């Protein structure tokens, strides 16, 4: 009798496949709202993966901030802009068919080759072995070891706000 794989391995495979399929759907959907909803799927699957790895704080933040707040804003903007389905161009995409897709396949093949060769002799992740993913350890790291990146990220957010203002403001003349 073939031994059944571990339950968390099954859960991982299901979630990972779901995340990749949703990711493909984000870029392949013709309608912006459908893309946004696929992105929710990616983020939800990632949140559960984080949870399985023991990063429970990250999982909660992923759900609340990304899948919640940011996606709601995305959908709001799409609705406000009245974005319908994308205009299809009639230009034949020779470049994509003859160069882009083969190159992509070669790239994916190379990565798959790497991973399949290395899979048998590499250490595997022990689900549940990592327990430092709660708010307290994460917070301690953010305010000690990673203080500088954490603070400097605020500069990044400030730039994003200025940028939105520069690109969206009305001409006052």
């Amino acid at each position, binding site marked *: 009798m073939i031994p059944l794989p571990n339950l968390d391995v099954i859960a991982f495979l299901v979630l990972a496949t779901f995340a990749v399929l949703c990711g493909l759907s984000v870029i392949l959907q013709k309608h912006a709202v459908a893309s946004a909803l696929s992105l929710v799927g990616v983020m939800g699957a990632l949140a559960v993966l984080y949870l399985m790895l023991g990063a429970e704080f990250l999982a909660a933040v992923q759900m609340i901030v990304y899948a919640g707040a940011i996606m709601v804003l995305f959908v709001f903007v799409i609705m406000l802009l009245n974005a319908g389905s994308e205009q299809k161009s009639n230009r034949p995409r020779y470049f994509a068919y003859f160069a882009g897709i083969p190159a992509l396949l070669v790239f994916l093949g190379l990565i798959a080759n790497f991973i399949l060769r290395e899979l048998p002799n590499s250490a595997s992740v022990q689900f549940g072995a990592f327990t430092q993913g709660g708010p307290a350890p994460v917070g301690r790291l953010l305010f000690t070891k*990673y203080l500088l*990146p954490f603070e400097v990220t605020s500069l*990044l957010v400030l730039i994003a706000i200025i940028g939105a203002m*520069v*690109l969206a403001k009305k001409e006052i003349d």
Partner: protein
Amino acid sequence: MNSLFPTPADFLRVLPVLILTLFGTLLMLLEPLTGDGKGEKPQLRWLAILGLALAMAGAVIAYGDPGPAFNGMLLVDGFGTFFTVLVAGTGLLTVFCAQDYLVRERQENGEFYALLLFSIAGQCIMATANELIILFVGLEISSISSYILAGFLRDDKRSSESALKYFLLGSFATCFLLYGVAWIYGLTGSTNLSVIHYTLGAAPVNPRLLALSVALMFVGFAFKVSAAPFQIWAPDVYQGAPSPVSAFLSAAPKATAFAIFLRVFMTAFGSVADQWQPLFWTSALATMVVGNFAALRQNNIKRLLAYSSIAHAGYVMVAVTSHSTVGTAAAMFYLASYAFVNVGAFAVVSYVAAKGEKHLSIDDFAGLAERQPLAALVMTIFFTSLIGVPLTAGFFGKFYIFKAALDAGMVWLTVLGLLNSAVAAYYYLRVIVVMYTHEPSQAVNDLEPASSGLQIGWVTAATATVVLGVLPSALLEFASRAALLR
């Protein structure tokens, strides 16, 4: 535990970043209170100049007490200080050269200067970063402000196109970098460059996975320095962006992208150099060839300078490939001389292009020497330096790079690189010939005299080019001492 909290020494070592952030914020706060109603905001201009000058001073002060800061996130050393001073200086020149353009397009406002300062703050972080996470944050700060600056003329289609292309391709390239960082963390258990260096040197890690992660990070960095085959964005972005912004983009972010490129591949991946050198060799050659041969066919001066900047990225890649202290010093010297030349050349371009950047073809430069001899003279100095004629900074830059390549035994790359610079002479000389021998064009006849700010900008750049070409030893000595990366 206590040692994890920042000490005054930590803050001193990030002094340039603190100053730039402070002045950037101040510019935003004072923006609504300034202006003379004619679209000029000289107060903000001078505030930006003050901030950048203080940041340069701050970098020198920080270098008085070199060492790691914030738990090894940053490493203030000669190498980092060199690039910090360089980008702040480039920013200073950009402010002088942008003044005419901004007033003409009625776009002189606090946002431009604030974004410029924030971008430079990000580059200062990149220059001293010794850890992949802070390196990424610095890179993003620099990149995102660059995307916005490229699209600063919101109502200009060319500018918006430039910003959108830059943003989409830039974000895509950043994903590769991040994916590579994730693999490296998985392999070595650290994101600190010194620790990665130690781990890779001490115990053999899986060579295939290491190659994969190094290749992914190479893609991310090669995009930022516009090395082939990831150069495709550069001509469109530099052509569409406002000229002063193109000047800045081709000088400061590129110099710091090379700084992190050098630091990561010299320290963290230094022990596996024999594996990545062939990759760099190919990329360096392809970059030189693509840049120079595409530039031969350009009629738009901004596109020509964009392809020329790709070609020059190729020369610096030669220095990176040589993987030696001499090569690093040569790359540092080259990037410094190139920054002055390019900001100056784009300043002349933005001057001749006039309102709305209408006159951008090479024929529009016809007879510039007759009507505006100073502009033509400085442009000639910049272009001779780009060719690499002796007595200009470009000559010594190329000389040291090819010397480093020969020292490393890369004879073929040196020969092909020299052939490339001979090809390049053609398209630079073409512009000089048009400026000096042809009858003045309509565009040149209509030119108003340049403002004092613009003149300060290009005369400073030209002087620096000549001084570095006559007395390169002081800068080169500092670079050689600073190039010992650990």
